[in-house]
């Protein structure tokens, strides 16, 4: 047994926000505050990027500067992001360690407190643990690697596997997609590169864990996953950060590619502290008869804007987004899904559940596009909102464009409230007010959570319990 088992396990009852701790900063590489071409040169030098990447980044920086903020959307809070105040690259070294023993102590302790090595031993096929800008640890189980599965960071991916990496990198989400995809393209660091060869079905999930430790910092991981013909993969990511008075920025880009007949499931459970702006672009490209499924659980953050999407490019491709957003006091979860049907007989399914607590605000923003020339396409969209107390707010903006005949679209939306009578009823059975609310919320998401892998439904339930306990005075 490794020494990891003897170190304190995260106590489930200790505090409301278990990710709220940080260690003193000790970085070998720091690009300084603000974003200029020099910042990009610094990042390229540290990472020893090839020239094409340097050019790609610089072009992206120009696009980032030209693009306006999407202020016509729900929130003016984006205007409170001061890009010059962030630090764009912090690391202790660009190369991840292959064993936990080699990982620097403070970083190792961080991930141990978050229970990562434990989970790795218990049920994962591989783990990548990113600390600020770079992965501190990355390992794939030998048996999985022997099947030809590649699981590395983006830096290693573009260097060691350029023939696959360059083919898809920036193709699903072009740099100019939006201001934040451009920002990510300019300064990206970390994230995962995964390739699953034809016909290989990876039994256990691969997991990445993204941890922000530093203040005034921006984390910009870049993930590219390609699942080749007939192959299958489940990928999971978790995220946390300590609570600072200043603003933290997390802006990832995640591109998925499912080749013919492939199945790819991408699961996110994030628990950001309330000072994090979480502005993420996620999209998958689904070829013929393939399936891409996003399971997206958004807890915490100050503002999250995230709309995982699937481009259904091949006949009979299938896309799915199952999402849960929990907006606590002062938080805004602006989440949703995009389904772009681009071939006959493609199907998509969106189920979104949001919970607003106190002054928390949840917005569903959806886009379903089925053009005129297609036949036999189907979409199902369900949005359910739960409000806890009268200050809460929820909005739904479903945009469903269907043209042509022989395509079918179904949309259902509901808003419900946890009533005082319901809470009283549960309290009369001996549950505290917090437990009662927690149970109501878990009931509300229950049907959806049942579709999640076991480990993640347990994790999610625990996070909801912590949030609800903290929301009662």
């Amino acid at each position, binding site marked *: 047994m490794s020494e990891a088992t003897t170190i304190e396990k995260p106590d489930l*009852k200790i505090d409301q926000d278990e990710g709220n701790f940080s260690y003193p900063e000790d970085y070998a590489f720091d690009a300084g505050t603000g974003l200029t071409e020099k910042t990009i040169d610094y990042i390229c030098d540290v990472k020893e990027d090839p020239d094409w990447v340097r050019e790609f980044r610089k072009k992206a920086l120009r696009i980032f500067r030209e693009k306006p903020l999407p202020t016509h959307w729900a929130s003016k809070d984006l205007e409170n992001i001061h890009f010059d105040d962030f630090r764009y690259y912090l690391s202790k070294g660009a190369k991840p360690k292959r064993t936990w023993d080699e990982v620097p102590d403070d970083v190792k302790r961080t991930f141990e407190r978050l229970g990562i090595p434990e989970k790795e031993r218990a049920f994962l096929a591989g783990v990548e643990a990113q600390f600020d800008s770079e992965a501190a640890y990355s390992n794939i189980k030998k048996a999985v690697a022997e099947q030809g599965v590649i699981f590395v960071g983006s830096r290693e991916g573009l260097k060691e596997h350029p023939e696959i990496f360059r083919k898809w990198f920036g193709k699903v989400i072009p740099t100019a997609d939006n201001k934040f995809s451009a920002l990510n393209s300019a300064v990206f660091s970390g994230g995962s590169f995964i390739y699953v060869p034809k016909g290989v079905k990876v039994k256990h999930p691969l997991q990445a864990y993204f941890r922000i430790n530093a203040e005034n910092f921006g984390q910009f991981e870049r993930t590219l996953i390609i699942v080749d013909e007939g192959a299958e993969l489940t990928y999971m990511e978790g995220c946390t950060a300590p609570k600072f008075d200043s603003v933290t920025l997390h802006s990832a880009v995640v591109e998925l590619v499912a080749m013919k007949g492939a199945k790819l499931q991408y699961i996110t459970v994030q628990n950001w502290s309330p000072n994090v702006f979480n502005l993420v672009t996620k999209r998958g490209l689904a070829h013929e008869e393939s399936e891409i499924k996003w399971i997206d659980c958004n807890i915490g953050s100050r503002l999250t804007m995230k709309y995982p999407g699937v481009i259904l490019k091949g006949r009979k491709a299938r896309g799915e987004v199952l999402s849960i957003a929990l907006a606590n006091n002062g938080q805004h979860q602006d989440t949703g899904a995009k389904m772009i049907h681009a071939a006959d007989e493609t199907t998509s399914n969106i189920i979104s559940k949001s919970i607003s607590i106190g002054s928390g605000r949840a917005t569903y923003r959806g886009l379903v596009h089925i053009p005129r020339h297609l036949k036999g396409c189907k979409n199902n969209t369900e949005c359910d909102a739960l409000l806890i107390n009268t200050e809460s707010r929820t909005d739904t903006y479903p945009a469903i464009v269907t043209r042509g005949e022989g395509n079918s679209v179904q949309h259902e939306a509901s808003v*419900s409230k946890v009533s005082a009578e319901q809470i*009283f009823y549960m309290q*009369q*059975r001996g549950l*505290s007010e917090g437990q009662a609310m927690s*149970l109501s919320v*878990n009931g*509300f998401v229950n*049907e959806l959570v049942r579709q999640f892998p076991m480990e993640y439904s347990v994790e999610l339930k625990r996070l909801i319990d912590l949030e609800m306990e903290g929301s009662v005075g």
Partner: protein
Amino acid sequence: MKSTLEIKGLKAAINGTEILHGLNLTVPKGEVHAIMGKNGSGKSTLAKVMAGHPDYEVTGGDVLLDGKTILGLDPDVRAREGLFLAFQYPSEIPGVTIANFMRAALNARRPEGQEVDAVEYYNELYKKMDLLKIDRSFTSRAVNDGFSGGEKKKNEILQMAMLEPKYAVLDETDSGLDIDALKIVSHGVNSLRGPKMGILVITHYQRLLDYIVPDVVHVMVDGRIVKSGPKELALEMEKKGYDWVENLATV
């Protein structure tokens, strides 16, 4: 230590209107008492005030559970102290199964880290369901969600059986029940009767008391108990009507 549920001179109001005007009542453990009263006499208010419903304000008097006051305690604390209320209109909790709800309620009564064992829990649950003649598929349904009136009341009695309170208040448990459901629910209550529990049955109709035969009957008029007596009082009420006691109240 006293073994009674004692209500002393209880006054309570909602939105500034006093509903209970100094109500006195004592239910010893091991006995079944019934309160009869017309609509608007304050029966349901009494049940809610005892349980600590936030809409009601207690303006005088006391409620004592085994000699200790429970007024001022949160509803969940009162419940954990041993007070159970079977609701006239039980709330629905979508997505939460009866089995999970009951387990959470039992765990709330235990110290942290000493949660009920799953196997023991289901054994106990199924034992109680057999006793109450409730089908086992019942527990995998969401609490009261889409239940008929009879199912809701059965669920209340099942919860009462599982939580084993010291004192149970049954608020109009017979309302909305057909005769078959009434028999099942009454059978449930009767099988829970015993020296460890005091039961207060609140009802509008004498009919329920044919099935749950009380030790003592109290008649409530305008927020007060105006007459108490043996079970025969219920029959007398049925015959003579409430006018008879209302006259008593004004004497």
